[in-house]
């Protein structure tokens, strides 16, 4: 007489009691209160590029909707979700994305670089320089030195690596200097 095997667990769980009716405003509050946290976790803990981190957080919120009735601890669930999503993100992208130089990539505009622009004779000259540059290069310089984005953020926006963006910004600056020198010569 063989003993019965150890009992297997059911593949599905008993349902939780139905929740109270939920209004859309409750979901809006969940999004508002937690979106920043999820994006921060993806960016700061896992170095996920900001643009992608926003996308990941949004996907986490959408995936939460089908689980909302069974989630007992919202923050634990959302944090677990963004951490796992970030890990999976790197598993999927790890081979295609250059390792970031995090110091350079995260840094805001260099004060010395800012001075380069401040030292330009005036804003008109700056506008003229930017007008004479290829549109994309001008856009990059505006983002970096006027709007204050980091190299990493611009790289994400332009869909290139941070290292490449770092070189491109240097090239743009060099070209800007050449144009400025030309303008000065014309005068």
């Amino acid at each position: 007489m063989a003993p019965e095997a150890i009992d297997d667990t059911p593949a599905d769980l008993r349902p939780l009691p139905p929740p109270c009716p939920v209004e859309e405003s409750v979901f809006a509050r969940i999004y508002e209160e937690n979106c920043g946290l999820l994006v921060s976790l993806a960016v700061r803990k896992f170095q996920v590029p900001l643009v992608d981190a926003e996308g990941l957080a949004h996907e986490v919120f959408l995936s939460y909707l089908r689980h909302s009735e069974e989630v007992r601890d919202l923050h634990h669930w959302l944090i677990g979700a963004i951490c796992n999503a970030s890990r999976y993100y790197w598993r999927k992208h790890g081979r295609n994305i250059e390792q970031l130089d995090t110091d350079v990539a995260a840094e805001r505009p260099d004060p010395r670089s800012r001075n380069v622009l401040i030292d330009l004779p005036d804003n008109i000259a700056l506008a003229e320089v930017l007008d004479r540059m290829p549109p994309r290069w001008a856009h990059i310089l505006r983002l970096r030195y006027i709007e204050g984005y980091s190299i990493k953020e611009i790289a994400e926006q332009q869909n290139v690596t941070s290292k490449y963006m770092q070189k491109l910004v240097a090239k743009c600056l060099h070209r800007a200097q050449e144009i400025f020198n030309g303008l000065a010569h014309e005068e």
Partner: protein
Amino acid sequence: MTHSDDVDHLAECSACRQRFAANVVPFDPAARRSREREFTSVAGKLERERDASSDVVARYLRDTPTDEWSRLAEMPDLRNNAALELMSEEVRRRLHRKPREALAIANLSASIAESLAPSQYPNVVLAQLRGTAWKDRASTLRYLARYDEALEAAERGEEALEPFVSLEHDRAVIRMVKGMILAQQERFEEAYSILADCRRVFRDYGDITRYVQAGRAQASSLYNEKRHTEAHDLLLELLRDAIAASDIESQAGIHNNLGYCAAHLGDFVSANIHFSETVAKFTDLGFTAEVPRTERGAGLALIARGQVTTGLARLREARRAFLMARMVEDAGLCALNIAEVLIERGDRSEARLLTQDVIDEFTAGGMNQRAIAAVVELRDAIDVDDATAETVHTVHAFVESLQHEFHGTAN
């Protein structure tokens, strides 16, 4: 409290969550607002569908012959998330009693999920719907012991989720079923690794119920691999988690599993304590059918390990409880388990009395005539001193097969 950026602490501490999030500004505030609008709009849609679909699935299933269920995929009011959630619930409800019906519903569900318009929900939600439908199909096929097909269904579910990085929890739910299938195919190493990974994911999400469930599946895999000590240790760890989460049903199941492990490890005192804990917890929960099943399983496990007196006491208790619950078939099968031991011990008169009781109970309960005839034949064999333990075992297997055949036909 020590404040930190540790994720477990962030889950607990509102102040640290605010501080941690303070330094990252939205890359594109307009895009974030647009995403928030999409989120609330989808949330509202899902809620409205749930409100409007409360009994739609049960009604269609009730009013449509089983062999025409596949045609229900065309019904517009079944082609939404709420209806699919209800179908998943119907699968779960019927899995143990009517697995073929459960499979028909899971197939219907997969068919609907795969054919929903891409514009109906965001891609990530569509992927979840498909993943769940394939997981349900995998579960039912596993229950029907069609393991290769079950594995294929689980893998279809994984494929549906693959493009979405945010669906680790959904992925783990499917992979847990996959792990259980692999364990039943005796691919223990793969099963163990998958289940361990699922457990980690469930822990990350704070889903303690599934965390314990995956752990029990891991323990089951270890037990079937005859690694009883490791299974026992893992179960003790899970018992602590289930107690901390006040999950009484899991505690009951874990005690039962621990009973089996202890019996295998020769610690019969401990085995008896765990089995008694299981019975007490199922009784508290009102799971009346689980109480005699536990007693019966415990009795058989103890007898197999040579603890005949204790085992017989448990089998007798199980039979009494089955009769109390009017579960005549199970009570009869339990009596045959007892008769087998009695014959083995040479106690033919009690075995004879017991088989006569079974005949009377089966007759009064209008049971299958072939089952009654088989037990009558057994009683007659005992009368002429021609019955062995093997004879009783064969009759037991025959009656049990009729039970499955009956339920299969009823499906």
